[in-house]
């Protein structure tokens, strides 16, 4: 937990946990000063980042969610598109431990019965029947990372041939397993956020860098462009742009179109940040020195200037990803972003769009929880990185 550099006398762990603007205390300069002086930049950032425990935990959560995005098939229990109209609106089946007969992991089976008043099909727990569940069970076949054919899943019924099914998060209107759909939705939603931010970073560094490094008229034009884009109301613009995507486009085409649309307005914040850094770095001694010994402009920019604000870019983009995720979610939620058969968090939440469906099946709101957890973790992580980004401050 605490670094070997932390002096036992004044324990920095006793300081109040850091909020986003509270200063993070560096290891005491008096002791082990040498280790600090010779440590490379990234190491200093890491030492400082480790102090922010909440950010560290958030980092682990983010890594976990990223593995879901990489291996949704492994985490899902049933094929995400498999529908079964008879098994619609089954409530979530909780995972239970230690059944009477010695089964370690199981879920309660459900049985359908007709509500005498409303004549609607309702699912109630079947007290007699249990479905034994085990870890690393065999299920539907898939290619791990698109390469290795396998049929191992994190969770599955103990006896795949019995035809038993269980739904950790219930089923939707078409009887599709919501847990598995959520896993696949994570891949789409998370990667849209990531790619959109990567495009924004590219545009931001390119245009912000040009603006900050060259200054003068170029700077003026790019700054006015940024101001113009920032004063546009983003949501209606995004809606108009995504609505104009042809309906007959494939899922992949829509996917990339949406990332481009989101980053078109999204690069401006990063552009400003990069420009500010360039402006302040341009006068630094080491940049002047590099220029004096005859480095070309690209070398000065990419070899000498960019590495000094890597951490800032990482922090800014970590904070930008959740914004993009929320944007994609609401676009798909409104029916303008990803469209079925594609699965994203927004597409899943579209099922819960009106009072009738929420009243009937409140568990359809659960994908929203995934959005909140992911965004929360990314925001805290981003704040932590931002606080640690400048180890010399």
């Amino acid at each position, binding site marked *: 937990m605490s670094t070997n550099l932390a002096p036992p006398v004044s324990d920095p762990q006793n300081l*109040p946990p850091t*909020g*986003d*603007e509270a200063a993070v205390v560096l290891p005491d300069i008096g002791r082990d000063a040498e280790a600090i002086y010779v440590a490379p930049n990234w190491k200093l950032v890491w030492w400082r980042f480790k102090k922010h425990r909440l950010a560290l935990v958030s980092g682990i959560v983010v890594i976990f969610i990223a593995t879901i995005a990489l291996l949704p098939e492994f985490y899902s229990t049933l094929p995400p598109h498999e529908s079964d109209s008879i098994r619609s609106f089954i409530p979530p089946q909780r995972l239970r431990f230690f059944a009477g007969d010695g089964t370690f992991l199981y879920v309660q089976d459900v049985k359908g019965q007709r509500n005498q008043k409303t004549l609607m099909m309702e699912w109630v727990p079947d007290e007699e029947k249990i479905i034994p569940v085990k870890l690393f069970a065999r299920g539907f076949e898939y290619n791990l990372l698109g390469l290795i054919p396998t049929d191992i899943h994190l969770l599955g019924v103990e006896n795949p041939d019995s035809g038993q099914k269980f739904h950790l998060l219930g089923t939707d209107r078409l009887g599709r397993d919501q847990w598995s759909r959520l896993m696949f939705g994570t891949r789409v939603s998370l990667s849209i956020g990531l790619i959109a931010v990567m495009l924004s970073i590219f545009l931001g560094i390119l245009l912000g860098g040009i603006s900050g490094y060259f200054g003068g008229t170029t700077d003026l034009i790019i700054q006015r462009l940024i101001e*113009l884009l*920032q*004063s*546009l*109301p*983003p*949501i*209606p*613009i995004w*809606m*108009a*742009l995504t*609505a*104009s995507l*042809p309906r007959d486009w494939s899922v992949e085409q829509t996917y990339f179109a949406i990332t481009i649309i989101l980053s078109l307005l999204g690069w401006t914040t990063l552009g400003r940040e990069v420009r500010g850094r360039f402006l302040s770095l341009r006068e630094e001694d080491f940049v002047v020195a590099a220029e004096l010994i005859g480095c070309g402009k690209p070398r000065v920019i990419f070899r000498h200037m960019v590495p000094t604000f890597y951490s800032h870019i990482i922090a800014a983009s970590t904070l930008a990803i*959740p914004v993009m995720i*929320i944007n994609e*979610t*609401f676009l798909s*939620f*409104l*029916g*303008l972003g990803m469209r079925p058969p594609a699965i994203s968090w927004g597409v899943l*939440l579209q099922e*819960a*769009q009106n*009072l009738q469906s*929420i*009243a009937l099946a*409140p568990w359809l*709101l659960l994908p*929203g929880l995934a*959005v*909140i957890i992911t*965004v*929360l973790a990314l*925001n*805290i992580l981003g704040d932590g990185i931002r606080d640690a980004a400048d180890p010399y401050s």
Partner: protein
Amino acid sequence: MAQYIIKRLLLLPFLLFIFSIIAFILIQAPPGDFVTSYIAELAASGSAVDQAQIDALREQYGLDQPMTVQYFKWMGNILQGDLGVSLDWKKPNNELIRERFALTLALGVFTFLITWSIAIPIGIYSATHQYSFLDYFFTVFNYFGVATPTFMTALVVMYLAFKYFGISVTGLFSPEYVDAPWSWDKFVDLLSHLWLPALILALDGTARLARVMRANLLDELKKPYMEMARAKGMSEWRLVMKYPVRLAFNPLVSTIGWYLPLLFSGSLIVATVLNLPTIGPLLLRALIVQDMFLAGAIILIYMFLAVIGTMISDILLAWLDPRIRMEGS
């Protein structure tokens, strides 16, 4: 001061001109013109296509002419106060938008007032009681506020209201007032419905604003003039309210610039979920059925609101901070 305001106001037509071009490009973006999709729609529903009407529409918007001509025709009509006709609703756009626009504005202003009146006390308290229990509580609250999409809040509130109180919280009027002419009773009815969507919308903004206020105030509290005033025996409460809070306001006012546009366009999603009669759901529908002149008109309105928001924030900032208004002269 007057000079600064005039300068900003002169910029307004220029900005709106550029924005109108962007809006025009946006409504032109879908493949095919809207009359084509209108004919297709009519043919699909089995009704006869009235050639005279179609010709009249093409004529009115100059659809057979080059883009620039079309743009100036569209703009010319708008400048004369004519937003065109909605093919979907078969009504003039002015009529469709008028009342909804007023309600959008009312919802926005109401939300804004709620946001500021909650966020500023929270910000001040958190800064003056840094690391206290309530400060942590508000920090957690703020993180959740930022992380929860507004439509999720709306959905959850809708569900809870239905489950525990058996009421449906959609709409802005009780059924008996929806089509009634404006009266005092209708106004009271509106207020009794408006607070909930406003509160849902305010949640997101409150979280951001309280964080900004806290950070600004913390910066000010460390400054030497605080020591000075304390040494002179000023009471803590008066001291905080009189100097640092006022100074911490400046950066906050500059947030109005991006907050107002975000508020108006953000209300769009909540309005769709809660089925509010604002321009948001109208835009969504117009975009989906490709009723492009209605969509264009609404997008232009959102842009206008955004520009006005930035303008208000600039002028307020100049009024609060003499350094800004002196900059140009």
